């Protein structure tokens, strides 16, 4: 009885709200279309969610930090509660960060949530990007969202570096000194760039207030806009799904937004948030009080940037010391420009353009909503692994001093070896990955044609031994058959029907050649005839087994019945 009364009250308030909003904003149409929107379920789809939730947590914890942090390089004498630094001259920025860490209840926790959150944010973006890359989720119609994602990655790295620099501790100041050195290396205008960015000579008094505006307003503002666009595109285009039974390019299979996805996604936000708070309570990150205030004539051994800057720092470390000087005229510093500007520039450009590069080679203009298993696109997968190996060497070089010390190696030898390995190993990784993918394709073909081996041997009347294979389940079959094969491009004609020479013939020839290379080793999918024949063969085997009273598998339908 009482339950009914409450239900009536809830209903009334729901009806009232829906009516109120609809009368003013005609929201019901939109809600009706979306409230039962289906999202496919897979653990790898949560990577982007982690990135999104980290961003929200960063906004929350970041706003809190701004209430205490002073973006100022004015020099003061520290008089806070951290005794080892008492009486030391430092900037207000550093002193206020110490205050947050030692004098504000919950301040250290929020600072650590912010720092751990930033590390998780970039990590989640990176792994999410890899998932999207290796499953081909960036293919038409999602190329534009891929570019937004790459933009967000670049901004996240910049934002992280800016935030890392704000406490004005010895470690972050060293990072900025390196940034100013890189700015100075820019040809022709480098000195001007450095002077304008830092408001004069390094370090000056301007960079902290400037970085602060960039860190709390400019970059997060752009990121917020891009994330909104990113999500709206996912929403409108509907999420991709992995191949499986009942899943086609024309449907989306999963759970409805209301109530399941709301509960799961909402709950997952709390899990990410709770996890970050727990880690921040237990594990110290960036203990700026141990580094001391920034002094341009001091440094700590084993200076390390945050993980996502490591690859840039690593490239700068292993680069040979090439410099070109024309006395009395100019100095050009490829030793700095190549690892800090040229290589990252090329890497991010290739990354952003990848969907179009692949599309140009494959000629694939189809719409894709079913994700590709990495093995089914061996060249893409191999290119991805090859790039990761290259990135990996840059990244470990960012910690080469620490690695050399731990492994008791000579840092000079280690640097020399990596200089060679970073060029030799990526192509090897490419070949190995491609071969593995093709082998897996062979295996898939075998499974489709012959089913899975059961390990049971059968002796035929003629004395021959065979191993009995059991047919694949519908689910496995659906996954294995979900591979799409595209015809190769036809070679470009030298002249058209009217005898006019084809414009840009060499470009088209290159495209054709790359297209051939892309597809030439692809293991062909079984044809319909092959599948039917194989099926008949398997059934025959099963019948044979049945006749001899051998049970192949319990849950299999009797082969005679299915005839």
């Amino acid at each position, binding site marked *: 009885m009482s339950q009914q009364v409450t239900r009536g009250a809830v209903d009334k308030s729901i009806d009232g709200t829906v009516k109120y909003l609809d009368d003013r904003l005609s929201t019901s149409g939109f809600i009706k279309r979306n409230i039962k929107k289906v999202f496919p379920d897979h653990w790898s789809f949560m990577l982007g969610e982690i990135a999104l939730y980290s961003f929200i947590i960063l906004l929350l914890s970041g706003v809190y930090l701004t209430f205490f942090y002073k973006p100022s390089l004015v020099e003061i004498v520290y008089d806070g*509660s951290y005794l080892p630094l008492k009486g030391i001259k430092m900037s207000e920025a550093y002193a206020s960060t110490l205050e947050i860490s030692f004098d504000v209840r919950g301040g250290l926790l929020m600072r650590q949530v912010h720092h751990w959150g930033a590390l998780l944010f970039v990590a989640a973006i990176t792994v999410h990007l890899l998932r999207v890359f290796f499953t081909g989720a960036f293919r038409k119609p999602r190329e534009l969202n891929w570019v937004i994602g790459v933009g967000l990655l670049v901004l996240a790295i910049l934002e992280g570096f800016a935030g890392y620099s704000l406490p004005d501790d010895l470690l972050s100041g060293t990072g900025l000194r390196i940034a100013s050195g890189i700015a100075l*290396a820019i040809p022709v205008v480098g000195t001007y760039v*450095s*002077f304008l960015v830092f408001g004069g000579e390094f*370090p000056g008094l301007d960079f902290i207030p400037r970085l602060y505006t960039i860190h709390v307003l400019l970059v997060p503002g752009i990121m917020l806009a891009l994330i909104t666009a990113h999500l709206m595109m996912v929403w409108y285009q509907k999420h991709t799904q992995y191949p499986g039974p009942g899943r086609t390019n024309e*449907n989306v299979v999963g759970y409805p937004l209301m109530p399941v996805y709301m509960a799961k996604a909402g709950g997952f936000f709390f*899990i990410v948030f709770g996890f970050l708070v727990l880690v921040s309570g237990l594990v110290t990150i960036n203990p700026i009080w141990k580094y001391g205030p920034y002094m341009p004539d001091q440094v700590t051994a084993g200076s390390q940037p945050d993980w996502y800057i490591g690859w840039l720092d690593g490239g700068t470390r292993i680069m040979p010391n090439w410099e070109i000087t024309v006395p009395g005229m100019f100095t050009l510093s490829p030793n700095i420009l190549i690892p800090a500007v040229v290589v990252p520039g090329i890497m991010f450009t290739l990354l952003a353009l990848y969907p179009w590069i692949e599309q140009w080679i494959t000629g694939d203009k189809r719409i894709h*909503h079913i994700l590709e298993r990495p093995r089914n696109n061996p060249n893409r997968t191999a290119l991805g692994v090859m790039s990761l190996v290259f990135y990996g060497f840059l990244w470990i070089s960012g910690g080469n001093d620490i690695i050399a010390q731990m492994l008791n190696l000579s840092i000079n030898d280690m640097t020399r070896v990596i200089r060679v390995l970073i060029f030799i190993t990526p192509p090897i990784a490419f070949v190995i990955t491609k071969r593995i993918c093709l082998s897996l394709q062979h295996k898939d073909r075998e499974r489709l044609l012959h089913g899975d081996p059961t390990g049971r041997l059968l002796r035929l009347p003629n004395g021959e031994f065979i191993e009995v294979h059991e047919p694949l389940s*519908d689910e496995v079959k659906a996954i294995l058959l979900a591979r799409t094969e595209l015809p190769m491009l036809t070679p470009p004609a030298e002249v058209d029907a009217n005898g006019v020479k084809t414009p840009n013939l060499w470009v088209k020839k290159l495209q054709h050649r790359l297209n051939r290379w892309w597809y030439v080793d692809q293991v062909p999918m079984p044809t319909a005839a092959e599948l*039917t024949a194989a099926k008949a063969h398997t059934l025959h085997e099963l019948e044979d087994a049945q006749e001899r009273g051998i049970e192949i598998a319990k849950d299999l339908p009797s082969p005679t019945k299915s005839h």
Partner: protein
Amino acid sequence: MSNSNHDDIQNEVVPATQSETQVNLPKSELPVHVLRRADVDPIAAARAERQVAIMFLLSAVFTVLAVVSFFAIPVDLYIRVPGPGVTSASNFALGITLGLAIFLIGTGAIHWARKLMPDDEVVQSRHGYSSSREIRESVMQEIRIGGEESGFTSRKIVRRSLLTAIAVLPLPAVILALDFGPLPQNELRETLWKKGVRLVTDPTGRYLRPEDFSVGSLVSAHPENLKEWEEENHNLNARAKTSILVVRMTPEQLRTSQGEGWDYQGIIAYSKICTHVGCPIALYEHRTHHLLCPCHQSTFDLADSGNVVFGPAARRLPQLPLGVDEEGYLVALSDFQEPVGPSFWERG
């Protein structure tokens, strides 16, 4: 699956030439929905309900504990915790309680969704993105007509003048940026060192005498006028350039110098700022006289004119010519003879 399996495989495999969006997916159906225990067993459902409720209630308990620890634990109390070691008690308690309070809401909600909310998979069809041909063509048409109506295509002079105006408009933005800082003058080539400026230790500000140096000892030093300059200018710009390392070697050890008579009885001074990207160089190895930059491992040989022996730095460290004044204190004989720190375009 209504049809027998092997019949529809034939239909499933689409020939290699495919229509635009077609994929050779089997027309298989969703796997049969398996009921969960909580769907059929009211006791299991009640248990799941209880578990969810316990998580939510525990979360509330931890929230209360978080509030209590905020007030009860002084911010300057440090405790030893197995694992993290000595740590701020307040941070530790707040992290655990608040973390669990938040985390448990998440696990509760997900447990609820997984055990008690409907778990049958739903199929929705996708929509195409392309608008109809008519709509597309009418949009192209509208844009063309709009362009014509505006005269943007036909009125060349209007169009070109507008493009010109827009092309030059960014100029003020560039000009405004010119006042982001003073433009470079001679700052990258000059430091506070000059003839007769004494060397002082940092931060004690003690003058240095040759007798202070035994062979092999290394001291970080500054010009005596730095303190005064910093009190006047309130920034660290001069410090970022003037810092030097002073070391004493025996005449046999000291193979070359950058200038004749730039050492004083084996005492030499080099800029502490790396010529790569400007980190202070701090790691000195007495046996080899090598100086290693901790940032990118550029290595310089102080016994051999500060030349680069390893790493990404391309230039030797600038040497400061040393002597003593009439009172016997170490002084600079001049400023550095080449710019200290990272290379820059105009350096030449």
